[in-house]
């Protein structure tokens, strides 16, 4: 380490070389940061500004079908046109407003069903023996990796008028005429609960698994019955898992497109579907953009709650 025996005075070249090395190191880090940073800036953030811009424009018969925000008049004067009509239109037109409410109704209800059903399942896995546990976990994770689209399709086969359930019920003599299930709101509920259930079970499982088993024993030792222990000890301690699971179900369910389209047919309107159709038919882009912006704000709130909880959880560690 010591440069005492070096022929040239050590102070002369060394600091410069060192400075260069430092600079290189700093740049090396900057490069690592810059690549993903600019990718996201370019392909994630910039598109949103464009959507925001379009939501403030007017519909025009052109390609793309909206007016330009910034225009140069012939005399070289820049004019900026901002129109809030699209936003007022969304709230005045009952189609959009009702669709929002309907989306929220479906996603909130499905989240609650997922929680009521997923909680005991997660708890059952946690309480299983060392052999059964990994197998059960595997069985829960497997559908998670299986194609989302195909899982929805599987329910089409079950719920159709001529589907498995109706055929079975008729064969058993319970009903004479098939019950209409496919292309109803009921089918949408089933589809949402079915596809998002693993998102509820897995965070709950992860949370419960970390709980100290001796807490239950301590409660029992102090005279608490199992039911009481569950409500007084286990349930309060699994709130972080409940919050995480609910948000993981609620957020994607609200913007869902595939399930209402395939299982709801034309009969169930959800905001994701309206957006998709509005856009793919190339009709009213400014309004669709405004719908997207409103949906974004609708979802920003739960995300903030989520991050607040996560922040609190990491502080506690």
């Amino acid at each position, binding site marked *: 380490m010591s440069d005492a025996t070096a022929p040239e005075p050590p102070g002369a070249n060394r600091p410069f070389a060192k400075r260069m090395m430092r600079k290189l190191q700093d740049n090396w880090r900057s490069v690592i940061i810059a690549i*993903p*940073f600019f990718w996201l800036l370019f392909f994630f953030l910039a598109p949103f500004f464009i959507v925001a811009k379009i939501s403030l424009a007017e519909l025009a018969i052109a390609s793309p079908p909206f007016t330009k925000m910034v225009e140069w008049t012939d005399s070289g004067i820049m004019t900026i046109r901002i129109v809030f009509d699209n936003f007022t239109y969304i709230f005045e037109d009952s189609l959009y407003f009702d669709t929002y409410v309907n989306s929220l109704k479906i996603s909130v209800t499905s989240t609650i069903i997922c929680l009521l059903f997923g909680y005991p399942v997660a*708890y059952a896995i946690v309480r299983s023996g060392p052999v059964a546990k990994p197998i059960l976990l595997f069985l829960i994770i497997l559908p998670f*990796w299986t194609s989302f689209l195909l899982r929805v399709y599987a329910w089409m086969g079950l719920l159709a008028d001529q589907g498995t359930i109706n055929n079975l019920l008729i064969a058993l003599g319970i009903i004479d005429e098939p019950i209409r299930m496919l292309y109803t709101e009921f089918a949408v509920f089933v589809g949402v609960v079915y596809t998002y259930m693993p998102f509820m079970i897995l965070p709950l499982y992860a949370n419960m698994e970390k709980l100290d*088993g001796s807490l239950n024993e301590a409660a029992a030792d102090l005279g608490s019955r199992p039911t009481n222990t569950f409500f007084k000890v286990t349930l309060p301690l699994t709130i972080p898992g409940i919050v995480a699971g609910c948000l993981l179900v609620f957020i994607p369910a609200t913007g869902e*497109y*595939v399930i209402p389209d395939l299982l709801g047919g034309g009969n169930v309107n959800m905001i994701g579907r309206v957006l998709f159709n509005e856009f793919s038919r190339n009709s009213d882009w400014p309004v669709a953009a405004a719908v997207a912006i409103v949906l974004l704000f609708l979802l920003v709130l739960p995300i903030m709650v989520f991050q607040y909880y996560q922040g609190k959880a990491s502080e506690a560690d």
Partner: protein
Amino acid sequence: MYGKRSRFLTIMLTLGLAFFYIPMIMLVIYSFNYSKIVPVWGGWSLRWYNELFQSQEVWEAVSLSLQIATLNATFATLLGTLAALAMVRFGRFKGRTLFGGMIVAPLVMPEVITGLSLLVFFISLNELIGWPAQRGFTTITIAHITFSMAFVAVTIQARLTGMGQDLEEAAADLGAKPFKVLTAITLPRLTPALVSGWLLAFTLSLDDLVIASFVTGPGANTLPILIFSRIRLGLRPDINALATIIILVIAVCVAIAAILMLRQQRRDLRDQQLAAGEG
């Protein structure tokens, strides 16, 4: 936390698993149905598999989807890892909050919004600089990288945080320069997370319908787009056959992964016994 499983819990567990698997089992069974109308049983047959294999359209979609998924997984893992390193290991830097926000945002963003904003972006970009002239392979890949890198970044971030910084500090203490620390210590330790990140990105891409539908162009049909366009009109036996094959492939892959993990666990156990034996 093991313990007794009450009867209620066992019933719920059974119901849950039935709920998960009965639809898929029915899907598989009906793929072997001879009848053209899916729910009407017409005897066992491989007719639809045969039809499927002869469909040029299906093969093209499969090939396109696999190409996009591979490219996407590779780039998303690369970018996601860089992002995670920047967030966890580089301390404070300018724009860190914005960066962190942009990493988390795609996770909670409805696909519809991501898709439409990217579509609008590509159209505007085309007007501005004439690229991308046509939407399809490239635009889908870019869109997929953008949202799946966030998933990779979060996976790797969790792993990096869990690893702690002891080993990196030890390497620096032993004279390793920062870049050497990264290549000799951090990355090898990250390998399992990198593998699962890659697989996650791969699956996300294979699975995506909504974003791909937005940013695709004429002729570029990924497998989900193809499936969706067919089942939108009702049940189709050839899709049942396709679904069966996909489910089978995924089940085999996940099972292999599970077995590998189990082996690793056994190896760890053996190591512990070895250590205890000669302590």
